[in-house]
């Protein structure tokens, strides 16, 4: 039996009176890459934010078990320290805080009580991750996401993932809005993260990124429910047909 990292059980989520997630079950094993696909407004981003603990969303039913324990009561920082990471679709800026300083703080949060990370070790870690993503050193001195282009923001999310080495990385449309070169670099970042120890939940609208990152499993989310699951071939099928046949099929039921 594979080692289960994340188990989402019958999850229901409301924003105001609106139920956005309407009963999701999802299991992710250690060392696997899952793609979660779906049309706009299907609840993909909501699911990623709920998993990370965004205060705006109210879980009305179900549970989320991460590495053996329910995390619904944990604030986002504790979920992060437990090994969860979210690459944001729309990352916030933190003016006045350099990328290097930001990363140092996030690492320090993980080394409380331990021997602190030496400056040399930290620099090596950061430079190494930056090189994999072709991020220039001077970017590390810029303020976090402040004045960054869309592509730069996505790369910075990947940088954080590679430095923090989360057990589960949730990538919320990290591939959207990128040109082909940028997409390739992001894909390389994801492949660099992929390992028997690390799981990835890749949330995407398009099949495009899956040409570079081959998922172990594909789930299709429509109107707050997972309506179809399969292997990589499911993504290719969707690329050909679009989401319409699935939506029609559902309507017919």
């Amino acid at each position, binding site marked *: 039996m594979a080692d289960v990292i994340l188990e989402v059980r019958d999850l229901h989520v409301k924003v105001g009176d609106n139920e956005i997630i309407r009963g999701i079950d999802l299991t992710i094993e250690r060392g696997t890459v899952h793609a979660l696909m779906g049309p706009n407004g299907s609840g993909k981003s909501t699911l990623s934010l709920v998993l990370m603990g965004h205060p705006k969303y109210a879980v009305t039913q179900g549970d989320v078990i991460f590495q053996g324990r329910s995390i619904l009561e944990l604030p986002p*920082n504790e979920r992060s320290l437990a090994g969860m990471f979210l690459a944001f679709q729309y990352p916030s800026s933190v003016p006045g805080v350099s990328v290097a300083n930001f990363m140092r703080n*996030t690492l320090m949060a993980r080394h409380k009580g331990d021997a602190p990370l030496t400056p040399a070790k930290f620099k090596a870690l950061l430079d190494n991750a930056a090189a994999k993503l072709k991020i220039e050193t001077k970017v590390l001195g810029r303020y976090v996401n402040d004045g960054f282009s869309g592509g730069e923001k996505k790369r910075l999310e990947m940088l954080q993932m590679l430095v923090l080495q989360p057990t589960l990385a949730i990538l919320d449309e990290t591939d959207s809005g990128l040109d082909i070169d940028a997409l390739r670099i992001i894909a390389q970042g994801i492949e660099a993260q992929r390992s028997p120890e690390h799981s990835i939940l890749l949330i995407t609208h398009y099949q495009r990124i899956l040409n570079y990152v081959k998922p172990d499993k594909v789930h299709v989310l429509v109107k707050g429910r997972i309506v179809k699951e399969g292997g990589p071939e499911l993504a290719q099928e969707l690329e050909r047909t679009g989401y319409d046949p699935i939506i029609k099929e559902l309507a017919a039921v």
Partner: protein
Amino acid sequence: MALEEKQLVDKDYKYGFRDQTDSYSFKSRKGIDHDIVEQISQMKNEPQWMREFRHRSLDIFLSKPMPAWAKNEVLEAIDFDDIYYYMRASDREGKTWEDVPEDIKRTFDRLGIPEAERKFLGGVTAQYDSEVVYHSIRKDLEAKGVLFSDMDAGLREHEDIVRKYFATVIPPADNKFSALNSAVWSGGSFIWVPPGVSVDIPLQAYFRINSENMGQFERTLIIAEPGSFVHYIEGCTAPTYSSNSLHSAVVELIAMEGAHIRYTTIQNWYKTVYNLVTKRAMAYKNAHVEWVDGNIGSKLTMKYPSVYLMGEGARGEVLSIAYASEGQHQDAGAKMIHAAPNTTSIITSKSVSKNGGRTSYRGLIKVYEGCDGVKSNVRCDALLMDPQSRSDTYPTMEVDAKDVRIEHEATVSKVGEEQLFYVMSRGLTEVEATTMIVNGFFEPFVKELPMEYAVELNRLIALEMEGSVG
């Protein structure tokens, strides 16, 4: 020099040089009148002109209404009869460490302030032993011909210079509080920098700490002769406890042609203190004056550092931050008076309000007729930490010239849920995340500070965000 002499004397003679007039029985009492002013002047053994200046100033103070520039109900509540206007070091030393409030002591602990400094900052001792540092710096300055002393010593030792410039930038009649300061001033710093001399280390009031340093009514006068440079730092980030409820300083800067003065203040008065300060600079041809002004403490601060741009090519800058928490009002800003063509001014103001604290930006840009080619840029950013807090902007522009370029931009933002969530999602607690966001907001100010001040200020903000600072 007088200061060294004073320090030597202080070692075995507790009351210092001033006790040459000890036979005169001075007794501090509350309230202000001509007797008190007379006694202060006599105690200090001052020349006749200063004595008369004080009396004249007192008359102005007594007859002047509160400043109309910024009406403030907190200000109206000051009871001038309930204040000590002059206390000698010996009067102050009666206090013990036990008298210093617990919250202040806790903050000292967490900021890692050394023992000797704590007692000074807590107002327990009048003297802070920094002789070693102090002497080497003194020697260096003396070699360059720089004069740096407390204002009382400056008046005694260099009466000609003081008399020439004293109260020429801020006359007693300027406002009620400058009149009050002129009547009862004591302490502060006197600096004169010879032509062409660049003082490469910041001069800090810290280096010549005595009881007057943190006095209620200090008076500072800095004269930078043509082509010279000096950076003066006043105050410190640690909370400064004072049993005095009113602090009203006057600071006058004079930057001659091509001179450059930078004046850095970090004010963290205890949260019962009224901090009403008049700061003004004269910048002559191609001179450059910078006010770097940080306001963290006090109950009410009203302070608008000004630069009078008197000669072509002169440049004035104010970079200020204000932090107001519960029960605090930081009413701060800047005034730039363009009295010559092709002068430039830049005002950058950043404020953070938390727990119902209130910050105001109050500014004036004035351009006189015929002063073409003036450029001015004003930027005010306010950050609100919660809905109970408040921030206002009161900009005034009086422009009587035609060819000018004036830009004003003001933003008010809230620490957003999204931003907080983003930072927390990387493993930082809510307090850590908030601290990071606020420190980032203040970064343009902090990076202008010498390292040790920058580190302390960042740490102080962290304590404020935890809500554990008194």
